[in-house]
């Protein structure tokens, strides 16, 4: 950011305030903001796409069903089966809904005119993480018993006794307090930072090429545009990766509660 400051003193890099959205129009209720609308819109689009793919599935897939099956098989083979084994099919509805919705919400970050990754508002990842957290504890207590669940979590067998003094609190903390927090924040922070980076580079390009075009600054402006394009590609990868990771962690937590052995 130093060169920006040198060339034009009144260029200000976009900050966290770009995530603050006013109500859509004058006099609208305070909660009717762009992220809220996009969250609902995303849910509708996911339903519509999934409906067009899976509403009337054929033995020999055509068109949208091929794409939908690609997504389904990706979640099943890369997420559900490795962590849930024979329970994979039972948990596919939850995991598939999570993956599709998060993926589309993330991709909104690079879709022109929408350009807001819904998960960059922590409330949305927090809802998912909280849901998985509740399911995780419920399943853990149900399948291992209340005592067994905490015993398996905090006192894994086969360690020298003094270690447990250290291990038990760490495991308790990491499983019950840090895990859900990082689960939500990982997705949120990636989308937040990615959007900030895209906003920064596109602001550089716009500022130096359109608002304050100078011979010295134009090179910087071009660099900003190139970086915006490159980072958009990179963001799409991150958006996919984070959707995958969030779903994978969800499967891992559920699997861990169902089968404490591994």
């Amino acid at each position, binding site marked *: 950011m130093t060169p920006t400051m040198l060339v034009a003193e009144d260029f200000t890099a976009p900050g966290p305030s770009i995530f603050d959205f006013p109500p859509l129009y004058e006099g609208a209720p*305070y909660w009717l903001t762009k992220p809220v609308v996009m969250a609902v819109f995303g849910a509708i689009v996911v339903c519509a796409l999934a409906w067009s793919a899976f509403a009337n*599935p054929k033995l020999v897939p055509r068109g949208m069903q091929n794409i939908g099956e690609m997504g389904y098989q990706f979640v099943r083979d890369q997420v559900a089966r490795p962590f849930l084994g024979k329970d994979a099919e039972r948990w596919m509805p939850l995991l598939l809904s999570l993956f599709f919705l998060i993926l589309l919400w993330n991709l909104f970050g690079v879709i022109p005119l929408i350009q807001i990754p819904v998960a960059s508002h922590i409330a949305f990842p927090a809802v*998912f993480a909280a849901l998985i957290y509740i399911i995780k504890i419920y399943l853990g207590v149900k399948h291992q018993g209340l005592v067994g669940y905490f015993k398996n979590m905090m006192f894994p067998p086969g360690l020298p006794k003094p270690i447990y003094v250290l291990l038990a609190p760490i495991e308790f903390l990491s499983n019950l307090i840090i895990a859900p927090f990082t689960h939500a924040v990982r997705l949120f922070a990636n989308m937040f930072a990615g959007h900030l980076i895209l906003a920064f580079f596109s602001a550089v390009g716009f500022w130096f090429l359109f608002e304050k075009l100078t011979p010295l600054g134009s090179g910087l402006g071009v660099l900003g545009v190139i970086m915006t394009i490159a980072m958009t590609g990179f963001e799409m990868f991150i958006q996919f990766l984070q959707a995958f990771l969030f779903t994978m962690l969800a499967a891992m937590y559920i699997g861990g509660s169902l089968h404490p052995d591994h």
Partner: protein
Amino acid sequence: MTLAATLLAAEEGNNPLLPHAYELVVGSFAFLVVFLVVGKILTPRIQKTLAERTEAIEGGIKKAEDAQAEAQRTLEQYRAQLAEARQEAARLREEAREQGAQIKAELREEAQAEARRIIEAAHAQIEADRQQAITQLRAEIGRLSTELASRIVGESLEDEVRQRRIVDRFLEELEGRPEAVR
């Protein structure tokens, strides 16, 4: 976290780590809708289809395997039949050869017997002819010798009576000769 959040909130007015309550509600609602439609309605459908497809493919593979096994069996059968036919043909050839050889041997034997018979018949014929010739020749020689002798002695010995007389005479002479000798 709460402390940090309060500090940040105090600084910026809007802390990105603090969720808006209304977004929590909207997020829950959005996920609920997606879960009901995608998870509860659509996922079972695609699961059912995928299971059916697996079954269909496995059925297809099974059918193909059956067909292949059937083809293999038929092929084995054909091969066995072919081998059998070849063996049969070889056997027939061998038999024919044997029969041919036998026939040849029989024919040869027959021919040899025939030849022997012909040769024997010829020999017999020749012997008979010879005997006949000898008999004839003897008579002829007798006649010719007599004729020749009569010519030589100048007296016809043709007359039977005379001949006999001569012979008798000769014989009488012979009879008388031993007494004289004695």
